[in-house]
């Protein structure tokens, strides 16, 4: 009888032991799955971060034509070589100011309109310094027409003006003119960029090496579904292309 009880006890223990082992295994399994999930998540997070970085880099690359950067540096170099040090210093300071603004803004989604206009003016002034009589421009912007919290996507306008210069004006013999107009309407900001270059269709035909202008695609993406981008070919009395007009509608909340 005693040995039977002992046997029962032993069987009970064995059962408890196997329960214990079973639940330990289960816990370990759960732990394993959790660790695996954690690493996978971490990996995918790293991938998303890398993608975000890539987009930011794309933005920065699309904003600034490398030819503009290096040709500006070349122009500054010439001023030094010729001993026009003060001019060179001013050029260098303004150029640094422009680069700094781009760096600061390429990770800001939107900025106040006035800041964007200041940036645009600085960019045009630098291009004007290189191109001289080949370029003249005017910006029509009255801050009184806008409310203080009107914003637009940062660095949105500069690529349009850059297109006007590099793909419109520099391709013609005539003196280039660029006009930028900003106005406030009920629920949006309207912006017109007009040039007297070779016209949109002709500029599309020109195949440029290296720097393909992905600018417009990016502008469209950043305007969102409620914004609009319209491109018009301007013509003279004879029906010849006389420039390009780009119209942006930027919704305001």
């Amino acid at each position: 009888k005693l040995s039977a009880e002992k046997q029962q006890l032993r069987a009970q223990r064995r059962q408890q032991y196997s329960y214990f082992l079973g639940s330990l295994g289960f816990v370990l399994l759960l732990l394993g799955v959790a660790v695996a999930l954690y690493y996978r998540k971490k990996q995918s997070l790293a991938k998303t971060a890398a993608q975000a970085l890539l987009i930011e880099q794309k933005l920065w690359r699309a904003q600034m034509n490398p030819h503009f950067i290096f040709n500006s540096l070349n122009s500054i170099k010439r001023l030094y070589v010729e001993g026009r040090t003060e001019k060179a210093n001013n050029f260098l300071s303004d150029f640094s100011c422009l680069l700094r603004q781009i760096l600061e803004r390429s990770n800001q989604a939107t900025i106040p309109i006035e800041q964007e206009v200041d940036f645009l003016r600085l960019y045009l002034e630098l291009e004007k310094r290189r191109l001289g009589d080949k370029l003249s421009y005017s910006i029509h912007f009255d801050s009184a027409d806008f409310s203080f919290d009107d914003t637009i996507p940062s660095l949105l306008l500069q690529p349009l003006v850059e297109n006007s210069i590099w793909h419109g004006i520099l391709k013609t013999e005539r003196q280039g003119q660029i006009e930028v107009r900003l106005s406030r309407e009920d629920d949006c900001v309207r912006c017109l960029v007009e040039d007297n270059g070779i016209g949109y269709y002709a500029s599309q035909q020109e195949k440029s090496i290296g720097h393909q202008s992905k600018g417009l695609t990016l502008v469209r993406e950043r305007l969102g579904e409620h914004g609009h981008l319209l491109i018009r070919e301007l013509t003279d009395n004879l029906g010849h292309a006389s420039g390009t007009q780009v119209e942006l509608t930027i919704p305001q909340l």
Partner: protein
Amino acid sequence: MKSAITIAIVDDEADARFLLRQELEKQFSHQIALIAEAESVQSAKRLLKTQSIDLLFLDIQLADGTGFNLLESLPEVGFSVVFVTAYSDFALRAFDFFAFAYLVKPFKQKDLIRVVNQFLDKRQPSHSSSIKLLSESIANCQITQVVVADLEGFRIVPVADIIYLKSDGNYTLFQLQDEQKIICSKTLKEYDLGLETAGFFRTHRSYLVNLTHVRSFTRQDGGTVEMSNGHTVPIGRRRLGAFREKFLG
């Protein structure tokens, strides 16, 4: 003493022409007979019709076209070309790949001295066939053909025909389709960067494979790749991840 050389500078940026002329005159005043300038494809064409030159500094991006438009419009390229560019990621690789001299703006004094001295040593005009290869590659942003020089001369090989490249000391073996082989006296490294843009992958210190010719991959023997001609190529342990990513994403 050799005769003095004539030079032309074709660039649409006045500042760039000024700086180049100024530095050339400073460094090589005794060797240079004349420096002519042009600012566009059209004006350069007119210039080269009347003026024979030995050395051309050519900007790639001009207002009315590209430097290649100019070269292609000439019946014959009787001079040596140094390409000049402010920026072009791919073009620089292509210049290196096809062994063309180039300068980036703003250029370094020592780079200018180097390219001019290289020219003065040889005084050979550029080959129009390799200019054509270069211009096609840059237009497509991809290298599609390779010039392979061997002891007897050179061959132009379409990239698609190359199965893999194997390094052999200072030589490189080209394994082509139909069991053809070429050995040339350039190192594998000189082909690496350019051919990467054409879909090649460095699997190993001594191997550069054409990914379109990969047939299978196995982990056996530390990882080997079987190519379309049945040859097997080793793959380095640290290249495994990047290699799998090319196929499996």
